[in-house]
């Protein structure tokens, strides 16, 4: 029995620690722990409710937009504000633009380094001038023994791509992706004022007033993003996923490979297509949303149910929080955030959310299965199983889909702007007391904000965010969370090189930071490994 501790697990957002126990070359148990807390829900208490979207955008600087929108929707709901069409479209555009760059950055910058032998670039001898320049650059860096941040890294294994042409092409796409991300921010800034961390989205809509000229520029930049998604990112994912990584796709690596994996998936509806017909459809019905919400249990892909938001609970049995005596779990609308970093038996700052008492996987794969993305279904029908590769696949597909949907939204916005000044806000007063809920399916999965207002102030504010679902620790029944279950059964042929663990965790695109040490349980010594 060897215990492996990964702290910090890098190339994710935030601070996460992963511990596993390995026996006979396979993971037999796992613990996922969030290692940083700021007390966001605590600091929102007693504030003016209108502060919430502004603060929510700072919960995470990577997926800031979706937090802002979910928070604004919770306020819309509480204030009884109907959003003007322009406001709704700008929110949709903001989230879909974010989706595109968030996904390709995740693939190239955060994930690809786990599958590439980056030093193969030095052996490139093709004729492409761009790739030759890249080769010379990397070779010069290697000669000066300074290849950070690409090194140090884990040792290569059989799933690493080593063909110089492929690697060099992918590394050049890595470089291009960073540039495209900066261009995406420039584009989104036209409607949000500052990127990252938008300023314009708040209760009642979006305050931005872009002109026709600005929107035409927006469209041009959008087309360039979509071009990159369709012709570079999607093609790369398909090539890698059905080529060198096909064995991992077929055995459900990081998912169904573990026979005991829960196979529960959930997503919320997003991208409303018109104003809701009724309150029930307002922020969480889904009948008029581009992406539908739903739940799947136990990998029964043909039995998708509707999401019942009343069935969401959070437990803190193994988290550094206290609930009142005798209370095991609470609905977020009644949620409680009371820190106790010295609680015995606790190991994480993450609460344990459950739907109908079950842990759920949220994120691109859940959206793909609930909405039955045709390409995903083709892949599954060809023998692939839900897991890490399918997650990457779904990201690329949906980036293309929301990118295409965005063009029609931009055109509609241009039409509105050419009739007169754009008005995206329905300015409402803060009610004396009200409750509200806002949901959106962030790039990383199901995101919900719950607010309770009393005497014009926030009485209670609770967020249940995607990585809380996925990185959840054990609950009061000792049922493991999603990362923990996904890791079990993972082959770790060499405990000094736990590359498979980080591949699986990164396939979820976590939003907290983590790290890896290796501990010898016999002596409890932490082994230090020299990087070759």
């Amino acid at each position, binding site marked *: 029995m060897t215990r492996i*501790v990964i702290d*910090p697990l*890098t*190339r994710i*957002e935030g*601070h996460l620690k992963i511990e596993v126990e390995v026996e006979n070359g396979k993971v037999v148990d796992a613990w996922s722990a969030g*290692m940083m*807390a*700021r*007390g966001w829900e605590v600091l929102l208490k007693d504030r003016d409710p209108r502060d919430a979207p*502004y603060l929510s955008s*700072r*919960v*995470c*600087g*990577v997926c*800031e937009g979706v937090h802002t929108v979910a928070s604004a929707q919770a306020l819309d709901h509480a204030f009884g504000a109907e959003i003007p069409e322009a406001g709704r479209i700008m929110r949709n555009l903001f989230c879909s633009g974010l989706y595109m760059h968030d996904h390709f950055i995740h693939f190239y910058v*955060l994930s690809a*380094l786990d599958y590439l032998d*980056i030093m193969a670039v030095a052996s490139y001898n093709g004729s492409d001038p*761009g790739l030759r*320049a*890249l080769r010379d*650059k990397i070779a010069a860096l290697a000669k000066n023994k300074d290849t*950070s*941040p*690409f090194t*140090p*890294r*884990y040792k290569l294994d059989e799933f690493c791509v080593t063909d110089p042409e492929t690697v060099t*092409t992918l590394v*050049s*796409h890595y470089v291009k992706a*960073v540039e495209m*991300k900066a261009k995406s921010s*420039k584009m989104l*800034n036209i409607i949000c*004022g*500052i*990127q*990252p*961390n938008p300023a*314009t989205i*708040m209760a009642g809509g979006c305050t*931005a007033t872009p002109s026709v000229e600005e929107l035409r520029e927006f469209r041009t930049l959008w087309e360039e993003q979509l071009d990159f998604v369709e012709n*570079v990112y999607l093609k790369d994912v398909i090539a890698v996923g059905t080529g060198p990584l096909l064995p991992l796709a077929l055995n459900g690596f990081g998912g169904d490979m573990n026979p005991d994996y829960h196979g529960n998936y959930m997503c919320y509806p997003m991208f409303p297509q018109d104003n809701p017909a009724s309150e029930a459809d307002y922020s969480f019905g889904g009948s008029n949303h581009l992406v539908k919400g739903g739940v799947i249990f136990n990998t029964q892909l043909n039995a998708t149910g509707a999401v019942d938001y009343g069935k969401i609970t959070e437990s803190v049995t193994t988290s550094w929080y206290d609930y009142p005596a005798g209370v095991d779990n609470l609905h977020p609308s009644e949620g409680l955030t009371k820190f106790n*970093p010295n609680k015995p038996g606790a190991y994480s700052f993450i609460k344990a959310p459950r739907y109908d008492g079950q842990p759920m996987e949220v994120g691109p794969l859940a959206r793909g299965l609930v909405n039955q993305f045709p390409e995903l279904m083709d892949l599954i029908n060809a023998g692939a199983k839900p897991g890490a590769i399918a997650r990457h696949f779904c990201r690329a597909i949906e980036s293309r889909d929301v990118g295409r949907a965005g063009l029609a939204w931009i055109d509609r916005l241009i039409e509105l702007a050419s009739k007169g*000044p754009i008005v995206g*806000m*329905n*300015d409402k*007063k*803060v009610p004396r007391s009200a409750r509200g809920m806002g949901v959106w399916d962030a790039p990383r999965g199901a995101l919900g904000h719950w607010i309770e207002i009393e005497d014009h102030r926030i009485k209670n504010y609770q967020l249940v965010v995607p990585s809380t679902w996925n990185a959840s620790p054990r609950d009061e029944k000792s049922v493991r969370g999603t990362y923990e279950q996904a890791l079990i059964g993972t082959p770790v042929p060499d405990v000094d090189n736990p590359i498979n663990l*980080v591949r699986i965790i990164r396939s979820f695109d976590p939003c907290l930071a*983590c*790290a*890896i*040490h290796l501990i010898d349980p016999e002596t409890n010594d932490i082994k*230090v*490994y020299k990087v070759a």
Partner: protein
Amino acid sequence: MRDFLFPTIELTRRDFLKVAGGAAALLGLSQALTPQMAKALEESIGKPAVIWLEGQDCTGCSESFVNSLEPVTTSILLNSISLRYHETLMAASGYHAEGARQETIKQEKGKYILVIEGSIPLAEDGKYCVIAGAPFKEIVRETAADAAAIICVGSCATYGGIPRSGPTDAVGYLFRGTQKHHEYDDVTGNKPVVNLPTCPVHPERLVATIVHYLTFGTIPPLDHFLRPKAFYGFNQHDNCERRGQFEAGRFVTDWGDPSQQGYCLYMKGCRGPVANQDCWKRRWNQRTNYCIKANTPCVACSEPEFFEWFSPVYERQYDISVPGIGRVDIDKVAASVAGATAAGIGVHMLASHIKGKRDDSSADTEPKTEAKES
């Protein structure tokens, strides 16, 4: 392979000159220094090692740095600095990551730049942020001890930012809000510390600070919060493109009213009068836009009072700070100025009124009546 896919990785002499010229302009330096700065960038004297620590952060400042287009961030990473530790970008994980940090501290002792992103929680002995088994506050201490210079990016690393409002006693590297906390005095010594507050950090301000350091081995002149004067020596309100609307008493009171578009955002809580930065000139994301231009109030995220003392952010404030006068209650003053109201009078006129001077250049206009919301 299509043309547009050629990555911009190898900077030309012209690119270096462009970046250096931009940085010189940004820092208020003579353009005569441009060739020298370009040379420093190009040769990247020793390509200094950088350790980038993230504490109670949201990764927004890293995202903002990656948003640099001129120069593209990857070219900075490949040509100008050697990024040895950055949790979000580096290839290594766990032990290799931690090892890279330790090794840099040893090998580059006294030569590396430390960048801090996110606040530092001091409560409960630092239990609210633990990386690789160590409290973040100790990681900062250990890394700062042998750094050549320390750059705090964003309001969290500068003053504690938004987390300062929470229960974890979150502070910046030197400041807890407006006050110094002296937690790191022993390891700071005489090291240069630069604060680059705003939420998130502005990539141009960061790149220009690095270019200055690469060229001269020093940091640009700073104000009392250790912010480069070249970026933070300007008042937003005094330079605002909507200042004329303020003077004329035209305010946004209803975002849903198209006739109010372009009016002053003071009644919507704009903190421009107390915000010191150059956003009005620099804008964001390649000079595309910034909060006020996008029709939202400035929240003065460059200031130590952000966010705790500026909340609620969309509620007008009732007193205004006037340089040389201190805080002024705009309504009280207005009531004492016969026939004028706050809405129809500029702050400078109020200030001169208090000073007992006359200033006939401000025009009085009929004030709009505005209902205070909620």
